[in-house]
């Protein structure tokens, strides 16, 4: 049927004796990912419209979107499984899959970005503006009432 011989593996033994190792010396030699490899998600925050579609469709629930006036987008990169479902669902195509994964650390944290012209300071500035306008309107109404009664 088929032959049977001893020392059928000599080709590999000879090759191993006279060639360099196949393994790479990581971490001394840094890793090189091919161009399509998955890693982490990044956002182009100027285009975001805070619709929340990415948050609703994320399978592990790693994304959080706060609506205006806060306007933040945050991701827990330790929970992200790099499936790319948010990238294909975003109506403005502002999410991108970039190579390089989150390094291990002691504690988990959220990475967040805020939309321009929004955020805590913007909320405060808007509240001050509204309070000023109300105060001016109340003063004008008081003056008008005073002139009418005269």
């Amino acid at each position: 049927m088929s032959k049977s011989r001893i020392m059928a593996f000599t080709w590999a033994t000879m090759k191993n004796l006279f060639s360099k190792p196949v393994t790479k010396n990581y971490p001394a030699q840094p890793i090189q990912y091919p161009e399509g490899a998955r890693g982490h998600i990044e956002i182009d925050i100027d285009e975001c419209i805070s619709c929340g579609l990415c948050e609703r469709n994320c399978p592990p629930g790693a994304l959080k979107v706060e609506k205006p006036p806060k306007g933040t987008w945050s991701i827990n990169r330790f929970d992200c499984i790099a499936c790319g479902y948010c990238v294909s669902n975003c109506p403005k195509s502002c999410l991108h899959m970039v190579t390089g994964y989150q390094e291990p650390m002691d504690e988990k944290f959220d990475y967040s970005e805020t939309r321009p012209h929004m955020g805590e300071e913007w909320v405060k500035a808007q509240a001050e503006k509204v309070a000023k306008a109300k105060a001016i309107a109340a003063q004008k109404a008081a003056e008008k009432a005073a002139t009418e009664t005269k």
Partner: protein
Amino acid sequence: MAKRSVVPFGPQHPVLPEPIHLDLVLEDETVVDVVPSIGFIHRGLEGLVSKKDYKEYLYIAERTCGICSFGHGNGYSLAIEKVMGVEVPDRAKYLRVVWAEMNRIHSHLLWAGLMADAFGFENLFYQCWRIREKILDMVELTTGGRLINSVDTIGGVLRDINEDQAKLILNNIRDIETELKAIRDTFLEDYSVQTRTRGVGVLTKQQAHDLGCCGPLARASGINYDMRVLGYDAYGMLDFEPIIGTDGDNYSRCKCRLDEAFQSIDLIRQALTKMPAGEIAVPVKGNPDGESFIRIEQPRGEAVYHVEASGDKFLDRFRVRTPTFANLAGMCETMKGAQYADIPLLVVTIDPCISCTER
């Protein structure tokens, strides 16, 4: 009469990284009876259909197993597409074939390495996995991930293979074919490997049929069937024959799987040269309503996918019957009458994937 003793094997054992427990009834050094016991890694993935809608569930279905991951995503998409009546474009079908066959080669090389390690030939294990790394590099280049691809979607695929990548793949698999020939010669002709594989763990054709075995385990015993002949994806347009063995022992199963790796290389060449131009996905709207049964050929055998839905965005039931679940009875039958030292070999010979079995 010889005295019988019961020896437990597992869940930590020297042959697989996955837990399986066997209670072996021994008479001196010969195994007389086997009682298997699974359930160490049950995650209850089928219960998540009530919490994630049917498009998100694809990402959970493909994480059922790490080795046969593309097959699970493919089978789930096919089942939902059959219920909703979606017609997938031709280019997507050919792309699915290319990735499924690369998955098959990497799975068979992984098995060959584990088999060599089970009878102590560690250097052959390293050589098999060295070739596997080249395949995984090509998979990472085209899909983005080495084992979990996330490249399938309902209605097609998400990424494309352009001209440069296709040329690179064709060049690489020519080199891989030469190296695989050397590995195959070592497995089938070396004297010390043959003493561990010839005549060990014999399963006759009648026994394999009575026990409901599937995949290379059944084909090595002479049963002629392969689910790819059904013609799902683009297999109906490609040219191949199922590979059948004759003896039903470990040697036949080795030969069957290594020959299937060569057949996969041929199928990848055919698919890449015949692939038509066109779009890669169609948009899908609405919710599934109905039920379907789909069978595909995973590297380990026949996998059955059953979907029941009733018009809601959550499915009613999703069921995967993986090939190892059906082959467990065959494994227990090969062990009866074997020597105690051959038990690790006989566990690996059915190519078990315990995380698929218990989902």
